[in-house]
């Protein structure tokens, strides 16, 4: 690791981090920025690596960040003032998307056609399958590099800049590093998040071209009969590449269709590419899932703090409120509420994603709150809380400073468990034709589309989405288990009544 | 108290302790735990016995193998643990290590009963105290129904629980710590055992309650002529209750002696260290000494003195030769496993005495 020759050189022990590099005593009370100025070596090396990583994806990062808010909707809220700004930002986002990045489609292009003399249009004349696989490999390598760089940055901080040699959190981290089941979960979850983040470039084609606007886009292909390169609307091409179980009507996983398009997961019954659909669906699921968790988690944590601090009547009130919400079966409640809200403006944000997120959030908090209530109560009985009270600390500060940090870990466990549940729930609703509006991809809709063909050669349509859900939910559960064992190796929480956090309302 | 019991007995020479007077005899007991990486010799070839009506102490720091010894006697060792087939535990003339599980069930409780360290967790929280005592009564005394309830109440009274008729229907969580331990003792008595193993019965309790429980145990012993194996890490408690003491360290018995000579003239450096760490034997003003370091995990057969790393007297051979129990001084009952003994020999001779025979030693 390059420049850190002066401090702790050569003594990097990966297993045991209590072994600290010597820090000059004078650094003790300085703020972090000062500590970095004193010893800029490691931080500079790290920053340089990060800069390279950012540069490699600069365009995508800018456009990615800026395209998250629904600009059309935001602009519509306050016409006049906000609208032009929103429009400008939206343009910046589009421009950013055009900047070349190492993962962009144009760098490794997998669209092309096969002429008698070989592949045309693809990068270096590779076959589309190879080109696509290469791009996927680049994306995942890039992402996992980030993960490693992040970990490396943390270890640098721990060795060179952090004031205490050791904090209890180090033990948690070390325990997690040795928890192979948890690491397995982390890997799956990370791979899923990458799939969601890079959805637009992961698919062999794009949602816009292949799924949402197939009659506005054309593709070139080589016509064997005429010996010419011809072009065709994607929509028409899709019509010829349907997977409907019988005869020639099937494009299975890892197959090419007659227009030389490669389909890693095969095609949907309407001829669209299943992989592109799934990658984009992952993005929707994750976004809705995280938003709903943010909402549910916010409620749960605030209530946990309040009930643990004040107990008594406050606790009773939240118990009743939580039980009342839970008395209405979650999935049924969401079906009802999304029907009631279906004609309002809020239902249009993110094609119904926001409503779903809110509904999963307000129906999900009681379970989360129950899960963190115990630990919150426990910490509220500790001496240091009484001490804080006794010298007149304000309740809000006591809760934030002395109680919250202790409970956050437990929250993470259940957040991980329940995210899997929410993903199942969203898929279940879209299976019924509710929730996320078509044609925006959502996994449940693929299961539904493939339902008639499960026992035919087009089995992939329903099966692949289901298997992916199983893998991802298992991943989230494993991650939750790992975090739990890391935070609290003795405990048996997570067993018992809280299991149902992860159940997605029974979907 | 029990000390008199021994005085009434036959003189203390080896021949007189025929097996009829022995309540329990442990010979060369080895209990091994097989883990993924290594074998832990939790109990590594110990021998001792308990005479009728006598209290024998087993003392040592935590991790020395005391509790495994108790569980081995009761046949409660489960996979991955295993008792070496060459070991013998003789109870009523039988080598019970050869017993099947169902044969073992017939002597557990009846023959040998046990009182555990933490009274709260040794009582099943979902059954009343009475229910659990009556379970023992029905198993061992064939008492059922009202007869059993009455007997249970009597037993609770016997162990000094007030208002026993009401308490018999209460659940463990409704008892205080000391009362719970009394209830556990009542449960053990309900089995009418001959040998009672007490595994740190007072450690989880307050000091004042400790004293009461010890008095209770001593009274019961006097009344019922029980033989007790008393396990503790507390030298002070041992001094009060035991007739003879075995000091255990890392799976081995390093010193055994009747209680007076042991406290008056401890021989093994470890025993001396333990005694120095009792507050009451300190002259005032002195800092309380503790033995530095921890009990090592005995993960291979002994090839040296396991105490050597912590021993103030250790010398070179200590890390080469495993000492064997050797009589020290005149008292035939006083043994220590240390290369410094027998005292009558020079160090070289003594080392040669301890060296295994095939190494050219005399034994």
């Amino acid at each position, binding site marked *: 690791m390059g420049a850190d020759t002066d401090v702790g050189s050569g003594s990097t022990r990966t297993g045991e981090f209590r072994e600290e590099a010597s820090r000059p005593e004078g650094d003790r009370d300085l703020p972090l920025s000062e500590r970095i100025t004193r010893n800029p070596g490691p931080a500079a090396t790290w920053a340089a690596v990060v800069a390279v990583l950012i540069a490699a994806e600069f365009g995508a990062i800018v456009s990615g960040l800026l395209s998250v808010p629904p600009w059309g909707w935001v602009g519509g809220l306050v016409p006049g003032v906000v609208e032009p700004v929103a429009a400008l930002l939206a343009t910046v986002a589009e421009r950013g998307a055009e900047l070349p990045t190492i993962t962009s489609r144009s760098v490794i292009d997998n669209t092309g056609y096969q002429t008698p003399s070989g592949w045309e249009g693809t990068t270096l004349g590779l076959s589309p399958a190879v080109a696509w696989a290469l791009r996927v490999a680049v994306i995942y390598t890039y992402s996992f590099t980030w993960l490693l760089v992040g970990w490396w940055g943390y270890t640098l901080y721990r060795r060179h800049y952090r004031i205490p040699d050791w904090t209890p959190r180090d033990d948690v981290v070390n325990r997690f590093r040795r928890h192979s089941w948890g690491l397995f979960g982390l890997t799956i979850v990370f791979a899923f998040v990458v799939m969601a983040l890079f959805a637009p470039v992961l698919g062999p084609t794009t949602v816009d071209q292949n799924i949402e606007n197939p009659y506005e886009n054309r593709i070139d292909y080589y016509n064997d009969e005429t010996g010419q390169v011809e072009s065709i609307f994607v929509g028409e091409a899709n019509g010829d590449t349907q997977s409907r179980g019988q005869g020639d009507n099937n494009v299975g996983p890892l197959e090419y269709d007659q227009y030389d398009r490669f389909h890693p997961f095969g095609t949907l019954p309407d001829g669209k590419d299943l992989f592109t659909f799934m990658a984009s669906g992952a993005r929707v699921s994750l976004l809705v899932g995280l938003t709903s968790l943010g909402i549910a988690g916010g409620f749960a944590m605030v209530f946990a703090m309040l009930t643990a601090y004040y107990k008594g009547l406050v606790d009773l009130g939240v118990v*009743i409120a939580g039980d*009342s919400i839970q*008395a*209405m079966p979650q999935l049924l409640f969401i079906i009802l509420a999304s029907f009631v809200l279906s004609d309002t403006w809020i239902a249009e944000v993110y094609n119904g994603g926001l409503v779903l997120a809110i509904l999963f959030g307000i129906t999900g908090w009681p379970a989360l709150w129950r899960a963190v209530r115990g630990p919150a109560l426990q910490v509220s009985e500790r001496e240091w809380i009484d001490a804080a009270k006794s010298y007149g600390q304000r309740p809000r500060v006591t809760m934030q400073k002395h109680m919250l940090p202790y409970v956050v870990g437990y929250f993470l466990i259940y957040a991980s468990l329940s995210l899997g549940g929410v993903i199942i729930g969203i898929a*279940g609703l879209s299976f019924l034709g509710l929730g996320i509006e078509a044609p925006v991809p959502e996994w449940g809709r693929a299961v539904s589309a493939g*339902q008639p063909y499960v026992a035919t050669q087009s089995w992939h349509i*329903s099966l692949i989405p289901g298997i992916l859900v199983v893998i991802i939910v298992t991943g989230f559960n494993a991650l939750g288990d790992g975090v739990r064992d890391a935070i609290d190796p003795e405990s*048996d929480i997570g067993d018992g009544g809280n299991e149902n956090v992860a159940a997605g309302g*029974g979907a | 108290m029990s000390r008199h019991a021994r005085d009434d007995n036959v003189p203390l020479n080896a021949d007189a302790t025929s097996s009829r007077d022995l309540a329990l005899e442990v010979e060369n007991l080895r209990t091994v735990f097989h883990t993924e990486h290594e074998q832990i010799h939790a109990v590594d070839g110990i021998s001792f016995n308990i005479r009728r009506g006598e209290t024998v102490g087993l003392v040592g720091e935590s991790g020395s193998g005391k509790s495994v010894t108790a569980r081995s006697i009761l046949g409660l060792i489960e996979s991955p643990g295993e008792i070496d087939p060459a070991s013998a535990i003789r109870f009523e003339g039988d080598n019970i290590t050869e017993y099947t599980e169902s044969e073992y069930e017939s002597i557990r409780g009846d023959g040998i009963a046990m009182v555990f360290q933490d009274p709260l967790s040794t009582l*099943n929280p979902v059954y009343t105290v009475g229910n659990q005592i009556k379970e023992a009564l029905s198993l061992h005394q064939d008492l059922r129904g009202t007869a059993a309830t009455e007997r249970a109440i009597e037993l609770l009274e016997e162990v000094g629980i007030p208002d026993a008729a009401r308490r018999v229907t209460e659940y463990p969580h409704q008892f205080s710590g000391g009362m719970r331990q009394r209830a556990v003792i009542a449960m053990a008595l309900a089995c009418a055992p001959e040998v009672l193993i007490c595994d740190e019965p007072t450690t989880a309790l307050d000091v004042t309650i400790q004293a009461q429980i010890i008095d209770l145990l001593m009274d019961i012993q006097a009344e019922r002529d029980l033989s007790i194996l008393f396990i503790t890490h507390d030298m002070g408690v041992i001094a009060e209750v035991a007739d003879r003491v075995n000091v255990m360290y890392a799976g081995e018995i390093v010193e055994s002696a009747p209680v007076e000579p042991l406290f008056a003239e401890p021989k093994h450096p470890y025993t001396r260290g333990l005694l120095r760490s009792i507050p009451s034997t300190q002259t005032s003003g002195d800092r309380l000494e503790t033995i530095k370091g921890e009990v090592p995990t005995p993960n291979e057969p002994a090839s040296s003195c396991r105490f050597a790393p912590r021993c103030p007297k250790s010398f070179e051979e200590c890390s080469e030769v495993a000492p064997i129990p050797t009589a020290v001084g005149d008292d035939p009952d006083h043994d220590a496993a240390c290369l410094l003994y027998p005292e009558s020999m020079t160090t070289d001779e003594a080392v040669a005495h301890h060296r295994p025979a095939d190494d050219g030693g005399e034994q």
Partner: protein
Amino acid sequence: MGRWEYFLKRVLLMVPIVFLGTTVTFLILRVGPIDPAAAIIGPSGDTEAYAAIRDSLGLDQPLWIQYAEFMRDLLTLQLGESWVVVRGQSVWELVGVYGPRTLWLGFWSILIPIFVGLPLGFYAGLNPNTLADYIASFGGIVWRAMPNFWLAVIFVSVLTQSDALFGFSWGDWLVETQIVTPPDLSGLWEPTQFLGALKAILPAALVLGSASMGNEMRIGRTAVLETKNANYVEMAKAKGVPGRLVVWKHMFRNALIPLVPVITGEAFLLLGGSVLVETVFAINGLGYLFFQATINGDVPLVGSLMFLFILLSVGINILQDFLYTVIDPRVGYDGGA
């Protein structure tokens, strides 16, 4: 506080919960952005019919009167009638037709996991770290991660074509049954009828119980592992209690305690999950009825059904507390919940 006082307190706590839940339902249906009358009549309705519906539902009255009547009707169990799904039929009659199917499904989807998941979990816990344990544990983890609706789709497809796929016809096996159809619940006391109804519901019950099965297995395993190492189990052995009795008396009941909320929690999920499973298997139960009522805008029916669901979940809650109180004497002690 005694155990039964605690139980009574829990039951009393259910009163505000029913009240609050019903109020939320009212708020959503009457104060929310939909007009119940417009929803009932659909896009084609004429103004006259519209006015008539508004009038008969009392929608023109002040909100607080609407609320009072809504609550009064539901709490006195006057559930009204359906306006769209089966026009004019009383809700009680509808529940009489649709309810038994859901109950039948629910009954088996709770029972099957208990009789399959629990023994497997206990077995795994009694024999930890054996191959059987690993298979059971891993199977449980994967099994409970499967989305119900997806599993249902797979079951339906595989079973309807079992003849072609495996040369074994599920439909003709033992008694002839359809796969995607409501179970015939008439004459359950006759063995063949009973068998037929059971067989018809079996795949759906397995699916709906899948998560429970995984959970019960996992928790059963940990619970047994924990109680197995508990000191009172060692004590029981030390006082000579025979091995079999140790397992049944001293381990089983203690291991059940953490399982109570799991089992009752499953019953909860079942209410929600029934929508999807009933739809895929075309069981026409309460979940399916609720779904149909919602997408067809049958607001009065939706409200009444939601009220019934609230009563059901509260009932399950009370059952859970009852079981707790019976099994665990520590309940209510220390104010423990």
